[in-house]
């Protein structure tokens, strides 16, 4: 065991300069090319005196550098298996704890919200208008506004998203335009929601003169979640076996007939799941709605798409921005309402997915 490997193993210990100095073969073999190799010539002998090695290392910087790769063994191999096993256990525990951090914070958040808002959450809270007096304030217009926006957003984004997905999966030729559309959708998915809000403000509220209305918010949110719906629908359509299409064609169906009667019914649960999840994102968004101009005090429930509006996330933001503790409690209560709404939607999505999985 006098090869460079042995030297490498020896040196991975905690840190021991004497041993590093005692290394005979590794560095000294290289030293033979040095001009002043008279001393180096003795080196290959197994018992080269340690002081000589140290002295040479000290004298010539080049030799020191030549030795560096050996000292920093790239494999960092430690033969003490017990130690490595202990490190492995510690590492596993750390990874487990890191995973738990997220879950614990989620639990803390939910407990905090419920503790703060539970006492405010009454039937009257759902059925009253916002007020300067916390005791009389409620979320009725915000809840109604959220449902309005939810419905309109779904009406706009669902056909657009599913249509685009069908076109991309079933019609699109493999050319540059198609690739541009696909790349563009991937990039749109990463655009911050507030930027969609700017688009909504400049385009829908100002240029199209729709005003600060339910419709402007719904259009903005529809564009925001469009990439999510498209990508989810594409996945669902891709999962339909090609034999289904070929079977339909063999019976004389046109392309659209095969899609309409065979592919879409099979892909629909997946499409619906993706759409519901996307809509639940839209319903929780506050930033684009701020840009489009939701109102903090709304004394009526919107009755047409062109009415002024507010939504639950905006109402929460409005209340949490006030310094008084009572309004913070209202914000927590409204958060519970919002979370309940999201939970219902996600539950529906999971139910659909499970039903779909059972069928296949």
């Amino acid at each position, binding site marked *: 065991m006098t090869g460079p490997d042995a030297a490498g193993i020896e040196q991975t210990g905690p840190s021991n300069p004497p041993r590093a100095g005692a290394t005979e073969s590794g560095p000294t073999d290289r030293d033979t090319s040095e001009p002043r190799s008279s001393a180096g010539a003795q080196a290959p002998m197994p018992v080269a005196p340690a002081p000589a090695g140290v002295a040479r290392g000290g004298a010539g910087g080049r030799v020191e550098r030549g030795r560096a790769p050996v000292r920093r063994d790239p494999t960092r191999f430690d033969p003490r298996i017990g130690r490595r096993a202990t490190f*492995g256990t510690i590492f*596993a525990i750390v990874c487990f704890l890191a995973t738990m951090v*997220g879950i614990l914070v989620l639990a803390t958040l939910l407990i905090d919200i419920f503790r703060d808002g539970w006492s405010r959450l009454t039937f009257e809270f759902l059925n009253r208008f916002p007020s300067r007096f916390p005791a009389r304030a409620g979320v009725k217009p915000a809840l109604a506004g959220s449902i309005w926006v939810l419905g309109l957003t779904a009406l706009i984004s669902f056909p657009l998203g599913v249509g*685009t997905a*069908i076109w991309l999966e079933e019609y699109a030729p493999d050319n540059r335009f198609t690739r541009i559309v696909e790349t563009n959708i991937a990039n*749109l998915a990463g655009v*911050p929601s507030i930027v969609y809000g700017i688009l909504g403000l*400049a385009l829908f509220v100002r240029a199209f003169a729709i005003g600060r209305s339910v419709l402007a918010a719904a259009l903005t949110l529809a564009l925001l979640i469009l990439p999510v719906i*498209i990508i989810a629908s594409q996945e669902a359509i891709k999962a339909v076996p090609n034999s289904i299409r070929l079977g339909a064609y063999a019976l004389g169906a046109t392309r659209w007939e095969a899609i309409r009667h065979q592919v879409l019914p099979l892909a629909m649960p997946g499409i619906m799941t993706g759409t519901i999840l996307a809509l639940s994102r839209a319903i929780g968004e506050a930033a684009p709605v701020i840009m489009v101009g939701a109102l903090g005090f709304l004394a009526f429930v919107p009755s047409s798409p062109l009415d002024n509006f507010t939504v639950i996330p905006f109402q929460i933001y409005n209340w949490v921005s006030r310094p008084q503790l009572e309004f913070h409690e209202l914000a927590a209560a409204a958060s519970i309402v919002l979370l309940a709404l999201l939970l219902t939607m996600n539950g529906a999505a999971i139910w659909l997915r499970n039903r779909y999985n059972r069928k296949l």
Partner: protein
Amino acid sequence: MAGLRRRRRRERTVGGVLLGFSIVSILTTLGIVGVLLFDSASFFSEVSPVEFLTGTTWTPLFRPPHFGVLPLLTGSLLIAAGAALVALPLGLAAAIFLSEYAHPRVRNLVKPVLEILAGVPTVVYGYFALTFVTPILRAIWPATDVFNAASASIVMGIMIIPMVSSLSEDAMSAVPRSLRQAAYSLGATKVEVATRTVVPAALSGIVASFILAISRAIGETMIVTIAAGAQPALTLNPFHSVQTMTAYIAQTAQGEAPHGSVEYRTIFAVGLTLFAITLLMNILSGFAMRRFREEYE
């Protein structure tokens, strides 16, 4: 069943309509870029781009106003860096746990729960940051401002954990089993296989998830608007109140800035900066992800 000619005509109509739907997404991008460029152009006709990009004070309402975007930019970067400090180690460790250690049943239970973190509305996180995390920080470090970067960073970091953990876990699960077996056969322990074989092999996928998560943190609005404050400050002190680009946009839009004023146009100039930064990061992340896919899929 309708006549053949009518069916053919319908076929063409449907194809055309669907193509039209697809163009909407292109129009959306053109709309975003167009709107941002159009109003930014009129902003930059009044304020020089050099002053905008290098100025160190952001006071659009003062007389004379200053339009240096650096305080907003450092605000965004400070908070994103803090969020990354929380999310990257936690997310990566969680991904290693889920991919290498967890029993499949545990993974199927833990992964969706972790993903709920990304589904909680950001206003709710904002509420949590302001009313729960900030008081704790102020108890530990009394000099902390009521609105501060640290609490927004921590909560945002928690929010983006699933982005890191899910995408990294996907990348690590895609590393071929043969690589792991080769490492084991050389005598590596489980932790060595995880950290010296799987993580390096999945590195480009992991990096993609990191960039995407940071880009998400820069673009996030509500947590910072609620918890980080409204004071454009060129500071790196996380216990100070800062204003991010996103918070500035949201707060200005609410302030009913008169249409056509310079203040109104700042929304678009700052929005353009934000859009450019996040787009660049998303492209980088996509690039890293494609490289990873080329290697293993």
